[in-house]
């Protein structure tokens, strides 16, 4: 069952309240998104750890309801 971009953003922000989230629906099918997520919580974390934090925020939907999430993460420049 596809997901709405707003739901993805809400889930991420529920776990990472300061996150800046940009989401692009790559195919218009609600199943293939690209997301850019920046947060101070990522500071000092490896890329893998940062992505795992986003996956945890999405509570198991990636690879399931959400077939593909092309993810880029980072720390805000002023962090």
């Amino acid at each position, binding site marked *: 069952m596809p997901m709405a971009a707003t739901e993805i953003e809400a889930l991420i922000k529920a776990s990472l309240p300061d996150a800046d989230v940009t989401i692009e629906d790559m195919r218009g099918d609600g199943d293939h998104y690209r997301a850019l997520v920046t947060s101070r919580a990522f500071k000092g974390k490896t*890329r*893998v750890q940062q*992505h*795992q934090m986003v*996956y945890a925020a999405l509570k*198991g939907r*990636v*690879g*399931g309801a959400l077939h*593909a999430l*092309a*993810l*880029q993460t980072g720390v805000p420049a002023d962090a």
Partner: protein
Amino acid sequence: MTDEAVFQRICTDIENNDVVLFMKGTPVHPMCGFSAAVVQILGHMGVTYKSVDVLMDSEVRDGIKQFSNWPTIPQLYVKGEFIGGCDIVRDMHASGELSEVLKSAGVNAPAA
């Protein structure tokens, strides 16, 4: 098969091979775009690696996700360490970080 047994099989693969790619399909016939993208990067760099087709082994397909706490396939391992999935490998390749990781791990990447 128990999780423990599947994890042991995974450990055997990643400890006995410098570079291991858990993927959907094979390097010659990748069965998903993300797997194909990583295959292309490793091929472009001339890296020798062992591929594991998770579509042929449902226990490893699920077990690898628990093992690495990573929900998707493909998954790339270098010297037993989880490097990342398609996005991270692509980003690392673009920035040159992937060839650095391979070089410092003593893995031959002639075209890197």
